[in-house]
């Protein structure tokens, strides 16, 4: 039954307990480390924005378990079709914080050549698809990637991430419908953080749960405690195994809470209460995982604390490196529109070169949203 909430830790309204996934000590520490790194990356990102050093940031605060638990089942040759709120998935794929901050600073080191807003990453070598802002579009791309894998007869999968708001989009509907029809090896991960900017998920859809929507596309749906990293991992593994073995797609709903603002431009106090924030602060996915780890008696508190310190330093150092890089050159403005620059763009580029840089503005003015 999709409506069940699956968990390992067994708190937070879980109605069905999943078996604890079998993981090595190293693997458990790896999950913990990446969750903490995600948290620290986001904190650094928000700080850079508050200090006016970058123009915009989108934190994933509170969604670390959902990201790291799901990404843990990915193999190197799998693909990811993400939204803007999965920095943790990028970290789990081996992306360095410097690569990410290069994007946030829009500097010459940025793989996207400074062309997009902060947090719109692209990491080709990690099969991490370029992120756009429009909500939901990446879902249909994931279906296409997975259809291509199937056409080629490969045993890979594409994992796509999106929010509760995105379930209302056109591309959620067509992406899942096509995947169902073509049995595409796709794992659809909805991180239900309960808000689409100001709209609570109860105003987003009258569906009982997001997982319920799977049925409309003839695929299984699972609703998982998204703040329980082991439950996320266990459930995603089931979905991934199904995809790889030709059993088609799955819709996962990772039920969580967006602990921070929607973005650096957002003020959640306009639309939600301190009470609900406090309630969910108590369910912080990192704390819950640390409590569980400590309860296993094979991990020490100081060992875990050291992870926090190291991650903090890693992010501070990365930000410093990125900030030092030069902005992209003006010529990059005209490149990559087409494979070969057409005559019209060559002319536009020549005209710009002839111009002065008379009307330069402050690069780091804040984005108002």
């Amino acid at each position, binding site marked *: 039954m999709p409506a069940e909430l699956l968990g390992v830790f067994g708190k937070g309204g879980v109605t069905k307990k999943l078996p604890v996934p079998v993981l090595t000590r190293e693997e458990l520490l790896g999950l913990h480390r990446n969750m903490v790194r995600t948290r620290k990356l986001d904190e650094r990102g928000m700080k850079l924005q508050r200090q006016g050093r970058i123009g915009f940031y989108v934190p994933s605060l509170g969604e670390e378990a959902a990201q790291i638990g799901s990404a843990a089942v990915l193999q190197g040759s799998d693909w990811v079709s993400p939204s803007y709120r999965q920095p943790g998935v990028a970290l789990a794929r081996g992306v360095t914080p410097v690569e990410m901050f290069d994007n946030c600073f*829009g500097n010459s080191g940025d793989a996207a050549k400074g062309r997009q*807003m902060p947090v719109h990453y692209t990491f080709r070598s990690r099969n991490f698809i370029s992120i*756009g*802002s*429009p909500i939901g579009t990446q879902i249909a791309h994931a279906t296409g990637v997975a259809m291509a894998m199937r056409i080629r007869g490969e045993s890979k999968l594409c994992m796509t991430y999106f929010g509760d708001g995105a379930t*209302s989009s056109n591309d959620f509907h067509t992406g899942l419908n096509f995947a169902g029809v073509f049995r595409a090896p796709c794992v659809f991960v909805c991180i239900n953080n309960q808000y689409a900017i100001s709209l609570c998920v109860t105003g987003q859809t009258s569906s009982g749960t997001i997982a319920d929507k799977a049925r409309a596309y003839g695929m299984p749906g699972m609703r998982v405690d998204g703040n329980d990293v082991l439950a996320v991992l266990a459930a995603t593994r089931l979905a991934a195994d199904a995809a790889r073995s030709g059993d088609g797609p799955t819709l996962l709903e990772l039920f969580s809470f967006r602990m921070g603002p929607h973005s650096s*431009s957002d003020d959640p106090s306009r639309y939600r209460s301190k009470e609900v924030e406090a309630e969910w602060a108590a369910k912080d996915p990192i704390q819950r995982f640390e409590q569980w780890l400590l309860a296993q008696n094979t991990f020490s508190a100081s060992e875990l604390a050291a992870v926090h310190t190291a991650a903090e330093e890693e992010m501070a150092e990365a930000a410093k490196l990125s900030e030092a890089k030069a902005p992209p050159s003006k010529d990059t403005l005209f490149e990559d529109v087409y494979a070969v620059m057409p005559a019209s763009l060559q002319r536009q580029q020549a005209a710009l070169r002839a111009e002065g840089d008379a009307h*330069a503005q402050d690069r780091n003015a804040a984005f108002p949203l």
Partner: protein
Amino acid sequence: MTANTGTTVMTLLQALNLALTEEMERCEDVVILGEDVGRAGGVFRTTDGLQAKFGEARVMDTPLAESGIIGAAIGMALYGLRPVAEIQFSDFIFPAMDQIVSEMAKFRYRSGGEFTCPVVVRAPSGGGIRGGHYHSQSPEAYFCHTPGLVVLAPSTPEDAKGLLKSAIRGADPVIFFEPKRIYRTVKGEVPNDPDFTVPIGKARIARAGKDVTVIAWGAMVHTCLEAAEKAARNGVDIEVVDLRSLVPLDEVTVLDSVRKTGRVVVASEATRTCGFAAEISALIAEEVIEYLQAPIVRVTGYDTPFPYALEHVYMPGPDRVLAAVHRVKTF
């Protein structure tokens, strides 16, 4: 601000909020729908306070689907309501393109006038807020190329209020582009009269001049006015025509100005190829070419997606307008 005479100085954003408030007070059929427009009052705060004042039935926070927003608004309008739909950024209007182009624009025609859908679609547009690819575009040309739609693009608080009210009261579907980068920076006198409206289809001479006609709309009007001030110091007298209404277009004002000056620059933030600036050029080249003493020069965004770090390079500033003016002046 409640007197029916006189004016009040306010921002463009305040003028829009006031127009919405007045129209909702005037007529029960006016309803608002869109993402985050209710409880949060809109991400730009354009609809601030309206849900508190008029209730959840008339100010609706919708699910995240522009096609649904416009599709539902069409249905409401067919039934007799006067929906004002917000598209959070004009960049996000494309999921609703089918409903706009295939349905909203064609209902009156295809039903022989039996069914009309006077939906007003408000869409903050344009660059200058460091929004990158997807929070900066100026997509007006797509809609100007779609018969059946009225396309408006005000540049002042007064016009913003007056045109939005005309749009809501009018009988046609309207795409109303709001120049978001000057939401708060441009202030101006706005008539207090709740029945003050600005007629659709009339351009405005934002600055009279005799040497060169510069045609613009939306936020770009201010860039052109700035250029005109600079040019004046060099003895060049620029006439700035603020179109305000792209469709229907005030051809008379445009062509008269060109006949007077014989030299034209068309300035627009949008990408160059097939933008609305091309339509203005084509119109002039077809109707009054014999008056021209120079090429018709377009100053536009480049034919690339809208960039982030190099936004200040991408967007046409006063200097680029002046370079074009120089070219047509010295041809």
